[in-house]
């Protein structure tokens, strides 16, 4: 009798210890997960950026928030080596006859498909105010070669913002090409000259902004994109799914044990009652 009492106490005590440990672990994970959802800026404390398994970047750098990238250059050299466009102060510069291309990728190295939304805005401003008449054109296309901008090249007057939504499968990536140009021949020479003269005494700037966001897809096995060749799994990455599965299994076992224990006690009480009646 004492031995069975000890056994039942042991099961309950063990269950309590395991439940306490599971609770502590779950609370820690919950805290980390909530902290990661905070905006990633220089002023915000980030617990572990390695949990970000969706990356956006080009061939030189991975993006963060408000990353400065190289879409424009500070000069243009012709085929003979002559410098045909160059900034006096070393700024990035744009002029008739210049064009460029910027390629960036969204890489999903997680175990879940993600839905992405990419927004590109292009504006010509004079002292911060948007100029509605500009000679610059852009073309935005995705990894399938399809133009997001209808008809290919579009003047930034007509559409100041381009949006593309794609699903990227697990361990896959997509890429985009952003082309821009300021046509030399066949454009409006008067407008070009006006902008060039304005630039002497004003801040006349052409700005391109790109924002890419990713959320977990409802169907984690959804397909889309191109397969990643070398999937980088940062050390220290914690896959939560097995932990949740383990939680459920352990809880199930404990519930069964508690039910068995409860049933055994009821039987004991019944035996005592019968014994006392006798």
């Amino acid at each position, binding site marked *: 009798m004492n031995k069975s009492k000890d056994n039942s106490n042991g099961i309950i005590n063990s269950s309590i210890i395991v*439940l306490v440990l599971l*609770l502590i672990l779950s609370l820690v994970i919950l805290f980390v*997960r909530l902290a990661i959802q905070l905006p990633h800026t220089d002023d915000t404390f980030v617990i572990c950026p390695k949990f970000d398994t969706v990356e956006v970047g080009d061939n030189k750098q991975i993006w963060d928030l408000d990353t400065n990238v190289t879409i424009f250059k500070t000069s243009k050299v012709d085929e003979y080596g002559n410098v045909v466009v*160059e900034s*006096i102060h070393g*700024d990035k510069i744009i002029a008739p006859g210049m064009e460029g291309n910027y390629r960036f990728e969204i890489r999903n190295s997680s175990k879940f498909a993600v839905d992405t939304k990419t927004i590109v805005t292009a504006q010509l401003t004079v002292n911060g105010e948007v100029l509605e008449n500009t000679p610059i054109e852009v073309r935005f296309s995705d990894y399938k070669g399809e133009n997001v901008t209808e008809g290919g090249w579009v003047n930034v007057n007509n559409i100041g913002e381009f949006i593309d939504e794609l699903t990227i499968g697990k361990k896959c990536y997509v890429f985009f090409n952003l082309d821009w140009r300021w046509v030399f021949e066949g454009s409006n020479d008067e407008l070009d000259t006006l902008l060039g003269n304005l630039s002497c005494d004003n801040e006349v700037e052409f700005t391109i902004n790109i924002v890419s966001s990713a959320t977990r897809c409802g169907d984690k096995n959804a397909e889309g994109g191109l397969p990643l060749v070398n999937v980088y799994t940062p050390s220290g990455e914690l896959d939560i799914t097995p932990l949740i599965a383990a939680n459920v299994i352990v809880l199930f076992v404990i519930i069964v044990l508690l039910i068995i224990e409860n049933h055994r006690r009821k039987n004991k009480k019944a035996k005592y009652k019968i014994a006392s009646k006798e």
Partner: protein
Amino acid sequence: MKKNIMMRLSALLLVAVLLTTCVISGTFAKYVTTYSAKDVAQVAKWGVVVETKLDDLFETAYDDATGTVQAADTYNILAPGTTDGQVEAFKISGTPEVAVNVNVDVDVTLTNWKLKDDSVYCPLVISVNGTKYQIDATNTTTAKLEEAVEEAIKTALGHGNHNAKTNLNKTVDIAWEWPFSTSDANDKNDTYLGDQAEAGNAPTFGLDIKVTVTQVD
């Protein structure tokens, strides 16, 4: 009693773990990753200015040592002893951030500067930025004199292609002179030209300058 407390504690912990597990699962659905990038370029400066005062190169009347030379009508005239000129007859300024082509189109015309025997007689001395050009051993004809003056003006204004960030500041001072009574023979020749003017065959000196600055690709 102790067992009841332990059972209750177990049940409480069970509920707590179930709840936190559910909340963790829920945070996955709200996980959003956002990245952004930007770049800015300045529009290349132009700022090229071309100015001219060429209209002030000739007059309808001059005051010289012999008195006043006056045109009979409202046309510009030349005569022995007259001189005029214009500082900064043409001026280009600016430092564009693009390569440019400066095209200086100059047309100097010297007509009817010949004598009765068809030999060339043009006593004018034309100076471009202080350098004098006239009929001499180098410029033996009016055509050669025209060409020499045209080339001088083109050079002075930077005719040709220039790389980006080149300071285009250039000016050209143009002046002319018809020397007075350099010799008896020239006096006779000057008189002959004057008679030709009376007869409707007046020698003329024309100067037409057009400057265009264009970006090159």
